[in-house]
């Protein structure tokens, strides 16, 4: 069974204990288990709405998927969770690379970090031991520099998850980085790490993970690899990476352009142009896809999201400049999605005269590469106007009230992907109800674009759905189905690119997951039981959001998506009808078996309480940790005043 380490950075106390099997059965690992502990700790700290995201009581949780680090296909991923300083709600970011496998091989499946280190520090994990080390020489370094220094200190084979200058400076959209590009980007988890004076976590693996049935796992991997390699989507991703997604969105007229004022852009950002700067394709732990470009400018990527949001969305067309910005945000430790969205927001405010040169410290025009490069750096170091944008969506208070109408965010999280959702209504619903805010990786029903036959859709979703992407009816069940399976994939540590329903109906589904879990962990699950894990995680996240004060009114879309029809190409004239959207939301709540106001039925809440609010010993431990943290923090302040 997995091991969980509880770390109080204030006192330096560490407790390590096996994760109870009943929790593994309920939440598997990764995202689901992180959510279990997040709710537990937030409630133990008092009122979740009152928890300061940068305070010592905000738990920062690193959790590997249940299969991460095994030879299961594409089992590389981990989640980083906390109260988000960006959205002030549920914070959760998912990441690939090699770190999580090393963390598990060093003996740790989950790290729950509270408190604040007295000085810049990092955690070193090796052979079931965890050491808090001083990071004075690391503070101020970029993400690649920090990882290099940690490799120098602890030897080749050390893999780290670190923050760059943006995290150190508590930029609200700061990411946690591992490798040159792998990013736990969403929700400002890097800023939470910075607030704890924690520069990084270095793991020296080496201890092979024990599995229940090595021969069965090997045979299952072989069989599933063959299945996946037969998928044309997997093949194309391995050749072109995610940039191939740009073309269809752009052709359709659904690429977010100049802060969603336009909906199509230059062909210079298509995959065939990105490919000219690609040295080779790279992979994460146990990956069979190999979707990541190593670029000739010294970094990795860009992904489709970055191309769209640091390209079309800010009106920047030259391929090389977009790749340079991609490398810059990765080095500084910024979430490319939030950064591109916030920059575009500011550019539109400037375009409309809502902010002027005296506030922005100079012109802020679409496609001005030099200005954007400088401004991104200023965001990371919180300098000048960059210091305002470093507040991400929370910068609303610095702008005129009408500025909020131009912000492309939901639940105060900037939209993650470059796809404008005014045309495909199921995409719009998915963004509106995604638990961490405007994010496509929670539930995007990508199959909706395939216009699959009725019988195929019924076989997949098990409920009546519509094949018309512009229809409002018949979408709720589809989104709920994707909610669940993506949640289970995140709990297992699997990549979406091998998960059934993500751009293909021919990837790994619940039956495949069950085979892997049985072989790796020895726990039997039926298809129904696995989907129930997904439902439980979605319900738990809903409850966490409710406890953050979110309501049905927060399950909505940016004003522009309702009020402004798309201006060009095939999607011209499409927008979201408010009344039909509300009906779609009703359908979704029904599909999820929630009340009409979006609350959970009492029986479900009782079950979640049973699973998240015990054991008492952990409560007591937390209370002690936080009290001590507050006392020490208070003492430091008093000392400083003297």
């Amino acid at each position: 069974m997995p091991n969980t380490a509880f770390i109080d950075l204030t006192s330096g106390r560490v407790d390590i204990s096996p994760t109870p099997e009943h929790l593994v059965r309920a939440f598997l690992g990764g995202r689901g288990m992180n959510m279990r502990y997040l709710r537990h700790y937030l409630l133990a700290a008092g009122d979740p709405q009152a928890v300061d995201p940068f305070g010592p009581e905000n738990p920062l949780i690193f959790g590997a998927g249940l299969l991460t680090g095994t030879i299961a296909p594409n089992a590389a991923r981990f989640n980083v969770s906390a109260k988000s300083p960006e959205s002030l709600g549920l914070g959760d970011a998912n990441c690939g690379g090699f770190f999580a496998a090393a963390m598990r091989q060093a003996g740790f499946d989950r790290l729950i970090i509270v408190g604040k280190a007295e000085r810049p520090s990092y955690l070193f994990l090796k052979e079931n031991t965890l050491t808090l080390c001083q990071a004075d020489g690391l503070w101020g370094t970029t993400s690649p520099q920090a990882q290099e220094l940690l490799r120098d200190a602890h030897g080749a084979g050390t893999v780290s998850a670190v923050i760059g200058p943006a995290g150190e400076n508590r930029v609200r959209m700061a990411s946690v980085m591992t490798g040159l590009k792998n990013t736990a980007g969403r929700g400002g988890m890097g800023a939470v790490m910075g607030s704890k004076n924690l520069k990084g976590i270095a793991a020296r693996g080496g201890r092979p993970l024990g599995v229940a049935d090595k021969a069965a796992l090997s045979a299952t991997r072989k069989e599933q690899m063959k299945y996946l390699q037969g998928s044309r989507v997997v093949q194309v991703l391995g050749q072109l990476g995610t940039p191939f997604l740009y073309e269809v969105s752009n052709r359709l007229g659904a690429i977010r352009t100049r802060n969603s004022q336009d909906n199509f852009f230059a062909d210079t950002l298509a995959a065939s142009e990105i490919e000219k700067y690609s040295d080779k394709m790279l992979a994460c732990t146990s990956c069979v896809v190999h979707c990541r470009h190593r670029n000739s400018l010294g970094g990795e990527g860009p992904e489709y999201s970055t191309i769209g949001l640091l390209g079309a969305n800010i009106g920047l067309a030259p391929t090389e400049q977009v790749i340079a910005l991609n490398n810059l945000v990765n080095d500084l430790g910024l979430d490319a999605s939030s950064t591109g969205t916030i920059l575009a927001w500011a550019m539109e405010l400037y375009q409309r005269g809502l902010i002027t040169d005296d506030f922005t410290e100079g012109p802020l025009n679409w496609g001005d590469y030099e200005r954007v490069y400088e401004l991104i750096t200023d965001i990371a170091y919180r300098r000048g106007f960059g210091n305002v944008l470093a507040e991400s969506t929370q910068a609303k208070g610095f702008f005129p009230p009408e500025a909020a109408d131009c912000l492309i965010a939901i639940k105060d999280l900037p939209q993650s992907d470059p796809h404008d959702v005014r045309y495909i209504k199921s995409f719009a619903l998915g963004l509106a109800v995604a638990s961490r805010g405007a994010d496509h990786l929670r539930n995007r029903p990508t199959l909706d674009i395939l216009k699959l036959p009725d019988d195929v859709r019924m076989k997949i979703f098990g409920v009546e759905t519509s094949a018309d992407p512009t229809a409002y009816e018949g979408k709720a069940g589809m989104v709920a189905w994707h909610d669940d399976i993506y949640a289970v994939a995140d709990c297992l540590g699997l990549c979406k690119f091998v998960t059934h329903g993500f751009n293909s109906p021919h990837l790994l589904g619940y039956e495949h997951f069950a085979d892997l879990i049985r072989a790796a962990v020895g726990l039997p699950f039926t298809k129904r039981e696995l989907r129930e894990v997904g439902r439980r995680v979605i319900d738990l996240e809903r409850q966490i959001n409710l406890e953050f004060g979110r309501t049905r009114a927060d399950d909505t879309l940016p004003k522009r998506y309702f009020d402004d029809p798309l201006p060009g190409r095939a999607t011209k004239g499409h927008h979201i009808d408010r009344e039909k959207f509300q009906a779609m939301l009703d359908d979704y709540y029904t599909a999820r078996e929630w009340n009409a106001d979006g609350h959970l039925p009492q029986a479900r809440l009782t079950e979640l309480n049973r699973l998240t609010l015990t054991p008492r010993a952990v409560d007591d431990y937390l209370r002690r940790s936080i009290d001590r943290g507050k006392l020490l923090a208070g003492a430091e302040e008093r000392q400083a005043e003297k």
Partner: protein
Amino acid sequence: MRVMVHLGEPYWRVAGQHQTWVALPPNATVASALRILETRYPTLAAEFHNGEAKPALFVNNEVACPESALCEGATLHVVWPASGG
């Protein structure tokens, strides 16, 4: 009539070119144009009928389907149907 076909990812790699003209009888549909492409580039047939994802089609910047009508000088875009990454 003649129709300009633009092949997107990954189809153009199979055909070896991004765009090509096809000659069609009057009142031809998109399906007719696709059949000509499959004949001209036999490996494209496997791409179009891979059982996983049928191409997304656009005629003169409008969403189209195999039954959509074509006209003289029309532009047909054939691209991979995917979203989310």
